[in-house]
């Protein structure tokens, strides 16, 4: 994280807790997550299904489905900078979720690419209408014609061929990759400071995925925005991010720069994740899966959350008290008793 200190802080998430209150009990989907996002830098978030990656992103946008979900604690500080560099600090969690301030942050300050390009576009409007709608919502005094011009330009930029014509296409006329490009155009049209990609390539096939990843990286560099990239694909996250945060059951297990975490994984969960992916080099071996399965989401575990599946657990220590997140090496945070 030392490398990121050069860039000014954009978002500071401190001890975020987002719970879902269901009939069966309380799901602590995000439980005390803290991290920083710096201008122009990219953060990758990885973890299994249900570990709180998407809920963290949704909390930052305040679009957690409520009820039953609610951000119960912590703060998300956003540094809204104007042209002169003077920053206004806003705690996103203190804003009313449907209020005008929050709506101006969504779309204008933070753009989000959703997972499913097939269903995230309204079937009733042309993609051009849906993209320029963002401009018309957020920027007062822009005429429809100007918005359309900018939409066409953005469509060209995200690699949609013949944008002048396809601006009037309906989503069903486009392929999955084209739709995801349109979604990216929609997320970027207002020039957000942060782009959140919530598994944006999961629904696409591998060749299109590579194109989309290249596109996102290129646009991030061109526009100088920060990127928060959520995925369960380690290779993709490694490709996309400057630093990586490993999450498990709503907690950050390990957080470091991409190089560090690939070269020197410390947490047993991260190590296990690394072991479970095939490598091109070396001889063909049986992959080692992580034993067991996720504990019940309703369970309240007194100790380490990974205890039941950990191969280096210390009975009596790991299941007694939760381990703290500790900076073991400078810029390398680990939540494990092995490194205390």
């Amino acid at each position, binding site marked *: 994280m030392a490398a990121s200190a050069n860039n000014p802080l954009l978002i500071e998430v401190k001890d975020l807790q987002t719970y879902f209150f269901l009939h069966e009990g309380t799901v602590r989907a995000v439980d005390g997550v803290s991290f920083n996002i710096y201008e122009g830098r990219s953060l990758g978030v990885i973890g299994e299904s249900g570990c709180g990656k998407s809920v963290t992103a949704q909390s930052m946008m305040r*679009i957690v489905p409520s009820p039953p979900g609610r951000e119960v604690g912590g703060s998300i500080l956003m540094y809204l900078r104007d042209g002169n560099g003077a920053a206004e600090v806003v705690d996103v969690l203190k804003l009313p979720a449907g209020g005008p301030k929050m709506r101006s942050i969504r779309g204008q300050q933070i753009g989000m690419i959703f997972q499913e390009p097939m269903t995230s576009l309204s079937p009733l409007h042309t993609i051009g209408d849906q993209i320029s709608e963002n401009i018309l919502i957020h920027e007062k005094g822009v005429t429809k014609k100007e918005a359309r011009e900018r939409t066409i330009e953005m469509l060209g930029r995200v690699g949609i061929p013949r944008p002048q014509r396809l601006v009037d296409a309906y989503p069903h006329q486009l392929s999955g990759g084209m739709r995801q490009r349109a979604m990216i155009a*929609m997320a970027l049209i207002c020039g957000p400071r942060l782009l959140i990609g919530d598994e944006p390539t999961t629904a696409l096939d591998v060749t299109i995925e590579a194109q989309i990843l290249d596109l996102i990286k290129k646009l991030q560099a061109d526009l100088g925005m920060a990127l928060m990239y959520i995925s369960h694909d380690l290779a993709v996250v490694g490709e996309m991010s400057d630093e990586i945060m490993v999450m498990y059951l709503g907690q950050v297990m390990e957080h470091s720069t991409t190089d560090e975490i690939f070269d020197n994984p410390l947490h047993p969960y991260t190590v296990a994740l690394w072991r479970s992916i095939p490598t091109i080099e070396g001889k063909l071996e049986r992959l080692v899966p992580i034993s067991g399965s996720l504990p019940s989401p309703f369970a309240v575990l007194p100790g380490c959350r990974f205890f039941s599946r950990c191969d280096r657990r210390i009975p009596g220590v790991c299941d007694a008290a939760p381990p703290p997140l500790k900076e073991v090496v400078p810029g390398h945070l680990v939540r494990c008793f092995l490194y205390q």
Partner: protein
Amino acid sequence: MSAQESVAVSSETAQQTPIAQKKRSAEERYYYASQRELIWWRFTRHKAAVFGAVVLIVLYLCALFADFLSPYSMDTRFEGYQAAPPTPIHWIRPDGGFQPYIYGLQRKLDQKTFKWIYTEDTSKLYPLRFFVRGEEYKFLGLFKTNIHLFGVEGAPIFVFGTDRLSRDLFSRIWAGARISLSIGLVGVFISFTLGVILGGISGYFGGVVDDAIQRVIDFLLAIPGLPLWMTLSAALPRDWPTLKMYFAITIILSVLGWTGLARVVRGKILQLREEDYTLAAIGAGASDWRIITRHLLPGFTSHLIVSITFSIPAMILNETALSFIGLGIQPPAVSWGTLLQDAQNLTAVAQQPWLLIPALFVIATVILFNFVGDGLRDAADPYQR
């Protein structure tokens, strides 16, 4: 991708070979057709619906131009022609020429039944003329004129007979059509607005708001309709002007009408708000109002149009029923329901069966609306297929 390519292909061929495009096969036309064209094609295939739509348009035009269409005003009394039967119209003149004409009427009191008996006086022949000058009226409320579509000089013509106060029933039916036909549209507009707004709020926000609105609907649906309308309209002051009365009755009829629609809207919104594109719209910073009106409601417009078409005849029937029992539109204003009040007792119906003609108009209108609704549902509503 195929659809996308076909978009491109079609416009490229348009630039290169404009002649080829005109010679598209029927199959090709089908694939290039817009949603609107498809609906139109399916609708026109439904013969009963097309027939219904055409006749309804004619009916509404007749109501609009009622003053011009009817030979007299709705209040004109013809002394000596009480409860006269429809005047027979003859077509072939005694000398063989073709011309529509009527004979003069003679009346005689039946000494046993004290009933007026009307007979044709074949010695007096009055030709039927078109675009004749008659009573002055204001054409569409714009300018004064006295030209009527048809009329007879020298004798009155009663196409549908007269009532007990010797007024021309034909003229009164068209005057009544204005209220009876428009009350359906206005009433449905009001209940549609209420239903969509309240149903939309109920479905979109959920929680306490949803519960509150649903309990109100439950309550309204539990009230028997006719007694409620009777109570409400009995509470209206009798001395209100016609227009005010008209809107009051419309609102009373709409009070119960919106509930069904609100339920439908709520159900659809509940379903659509879980779609990913709704989340994407929230993520883009759109307001609740914008999401409901731009992304949710258009998702089932066709469904709404169909249910509206089916609720118009119900509204017309309700107005007729209310006016029939004397609690709806009040005289001197005329609707089909008030016209039927004259046919309330058996002797009147037995001796002057033509007083039931307004009922035929009500029945015809309702059936025609149902035809159109049926056709629209088959053509436009994807949920019914």
